[in-house]
């Protein structure tokens, strides 16, 4: 009997998968044990300038729901019934005590459900800072960057208060540098996905990236470097598969099974999964005022998402560009149930794709869904229609 030898890549992937998908947050608990005087700060999707938290010597943790791994037992009586699942299970993480290690929780104005989270969190989890980081919603305003710079300074002051120590410019620059490296590595990961999707699947890339949301970025950089070094040695044969872009995973996370079933039928060559980690698309300047550099980068060196209105980045054009740059033939237009921004955008995207004669498939999902038979059939039929068109 042949003995299956686990490759170095598989070992890394397994570790990432365990850390990323475990809603008891073992890596964060371990970090807290190792840093008894340390603090952890949670933030909700989509983008948060984690450099601020990192520079304070704290551990940033992204809260993005809990998929089907946690039932929203207590949260359900605290939140409207017409609300997306990610918000319910994120709250349940709080009510069930799973994220009791947090000293602060931040949300941003991506949508009104997310804004409401700050109030619910604050009313229920006393002793924890619960705030909205007011990212500018008028991205084209002349004062948007200076405003945001000062808003970051406000958050920084709160983090200083929590950590009990001042945060120097040098600390911020160091953090920016760590995060710049992280973004470079993630871009590299996406390059593989785009150029040789048979060597790196989207599910794999997703898990490798997601592990970074629950550990210090230096450690994540190490992991990514090791993984990237292994990818060229992987065995994988190019197959004649349809290349698609997966759009609609910017906030609530599609279940892994959903991504896998799409990948069984096609190559996902680009996507907006965990887009917050990759929001800034170039290095943040490591000179000058670091807060200004971060604020400017959020607005001027960034990708797009349906939760940001920016006249310079019409979303349909941005999607078309993503399709063209990744050499995709088709698009999976996903949207989380009850997600107003996602569902609104789905219509706009579909009209444009229709006009441009780019095939697309609409898929509505929920992080907690567990039955995929219908979706599998839809994807297969869609792919066949392209292959035999």
């Amino acid at each position, binding site marked *: 009997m042949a003995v299956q030898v686990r490759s170095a890549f598989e070992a890394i992937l397994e570790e990432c998968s365990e850390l990323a998908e475990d809603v008891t947050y073992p890596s964060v608990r371990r970090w807290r044990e190792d840093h008894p005087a340390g603090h952890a700060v949670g933030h909700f999707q989509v983008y948060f300038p984690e450099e601020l938290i990192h520079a304070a010597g704290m551990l940033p943790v992204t809260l993005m729901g809990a998929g089907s791994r946690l039932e929203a037992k207590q949260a359900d009586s605290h939140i409207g019934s*017409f609300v997306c699942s990610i*918000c319910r299970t994120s709250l349940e993480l709080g009510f069930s005590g799973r994220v009791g290690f947090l000293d602060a929780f931040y949300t941003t104005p991506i949508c009104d459900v997310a804004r409401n989270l700050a109030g619910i969190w604050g009313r*229920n989890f006393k002793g924890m800072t619960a705030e909205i980081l007011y990212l500018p919603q*008028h991205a084209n305003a002349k004062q*948007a960057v200076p405003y945001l710079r000062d808003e970051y300074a406000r958050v920084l002051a709160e983090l200083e208060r929590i950590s009990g120590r001042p945060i120097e410019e040098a600390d911020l620059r160091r953090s920016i540098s760590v995060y710049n490296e992280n973004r470079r590595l993630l871009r590299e990961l996406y390059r593989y996905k785009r150029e040789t999707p048979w060597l790196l699947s989207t599910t794999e890339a997703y898990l490798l990236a997601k592990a970074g949301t629950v550990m210090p970025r230096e450690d994540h950089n190490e992991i990514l470097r090791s993984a990237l070094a292994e990818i060229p040695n992987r065995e994988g044969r190019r197959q004649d598969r349809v290349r698609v872009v997966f759009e609609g995973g910017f906030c609530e996370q599609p279940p892994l099974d959903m991504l896998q079933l799409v990948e069984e039928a096609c190559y996902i060559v680009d996507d907006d999964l965990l887009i917050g980690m990759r929001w800034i698309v170039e290095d943040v300047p490591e000179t000058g005022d670091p807060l200004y550099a971060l604020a400017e980068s959020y607005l001027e060196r960034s990708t797009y998402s349906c939760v940001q209105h920016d006249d310079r980045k019409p979303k349909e054009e941005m999607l078309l560009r993503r399709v063209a740059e990744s050499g995709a033939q088709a698009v999976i237009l996903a949207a989380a*149930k*009850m997600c*107003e921004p996602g569902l*609104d955008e789905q219509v706009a995207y579909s009209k444009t794709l229709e006009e441009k004669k780019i095939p697309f498939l609409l898929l509505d999902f929920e992080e907690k869904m567990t039955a995929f038979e219908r979706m599998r059939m839809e994807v297969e039929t869609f792919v066949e229609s392209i292959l035999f068109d």
Partner: protein
Amino acid sequence: MPEMSVTQAPAPQRQGELLGRGRRDGNRLFKEWYAELDAAAESGDPSAYVFVMGSAAEVLKAFDLNLVFPEINSLQMAVRKVSLEYLNKAEDYGYSTDVCGYVKADVGMHLDGRKHPNGRIPKPSIVVATNMCNTYVKWVEIWQRMYGCKVFVLDIPGQRGIGWSTEPGSDQFENDRRYVQSQLEELIEACVAVTGRPFKIERLQENLAHVNRMAADWSAVLKLNQNIPAPFNAMADGLTYMGVLSAYRGTETGARYMAELREEMEYKVRHGIGTIEHERFRLHGVGPACYSYFRRFLELFQDWGAVYVNSEYLAYAGGGLDLGIQFDVERPLESLAEQLLITGRRSMSNMFFSQDQLADTVRDWKSDGIVYHSVKSCRTVSTGMADSREYLTRIKDVPALFVESDLVDPRLWSEAQFKNRIDAFFEALGARKAAALVAAKG
């Protein structure tokens, strides 16, 4: 807030003319406003699409732009029982059943050539969305695609968390104010470009002065409802008053209307005139009504002798004018930015962080309980309701009823369910009041 003084009562012969004037005049003004929109649709006169929560009317009216309120349009479709037709059109086009019904009813109307049951609606030349509801920003993108019109997001940073506040003059407040003021300057530039008309600061000053008067009277009107019996029903009459407040903000007509409304309400208070014969229960509303079954919605409460004496809706949908506003017309732009920040923030706080001020309002308006009406369309106001209710009943011992339906989607209305819950609530409330009475008698 200073104590309300009731001004000289009018002669009794004027009673017939006075009572119900706010409603009659409100309905008339509304008709006239729709007629103007219809005329603008014909002539192509430039129009601005704006929202009730932060319309920037002070600036837009300085350019004589016609103001279109899509939320009011959608609401009117529901009241006129035609919203489902429009919702169906939007859903056929591709919009999910989970998308805000206000948006869909409006999209349906645009797909139908902007034919509204109240008249034709002009095309947008510019649209202004505040961030008070995030769906506003998604909504304006729809018109931008349809018409290629100028989109302006007026971003008003809100309260950051529970217990957080800033005062004018503080660094934090000034940072936010500078941002808002600079956007107002950009909005003025955009209006000049869109209309081809010059900006006249005196016009802005005049508009600000009108709003000052209107807000002072509006705030007084709301406070008059602290009296027993309450002179108006905040859900029913309040809607008409709010319509005028939005559509005629920044005009002499609007300011006059509100002064006259105040006169009517003062008269009613002086003569102990309420909205129903016997006011048994006083309610505070959180969330809008179900406009598809508006009459029935109201009756289910009135049948129990219940009157809505106040509503959060009057605060947030009134753009935060409920506590008045004080524009300093001598420094118009700076003051506009400052006051927009204060009132806009208050509007948002009423939705996201309302718990403590809600308890105070319930106390001051002598309400017996709160009715939370959670609506599927509006996650902005509905998401945190269950939690706010839990907090208020647990911490502040305020009785509360929680019901669910929608503002414009008649498919989400279930009268039997509504009635059961309402009946049970009033039975319990009646028992509570009786027990309190016995306890008070010792």
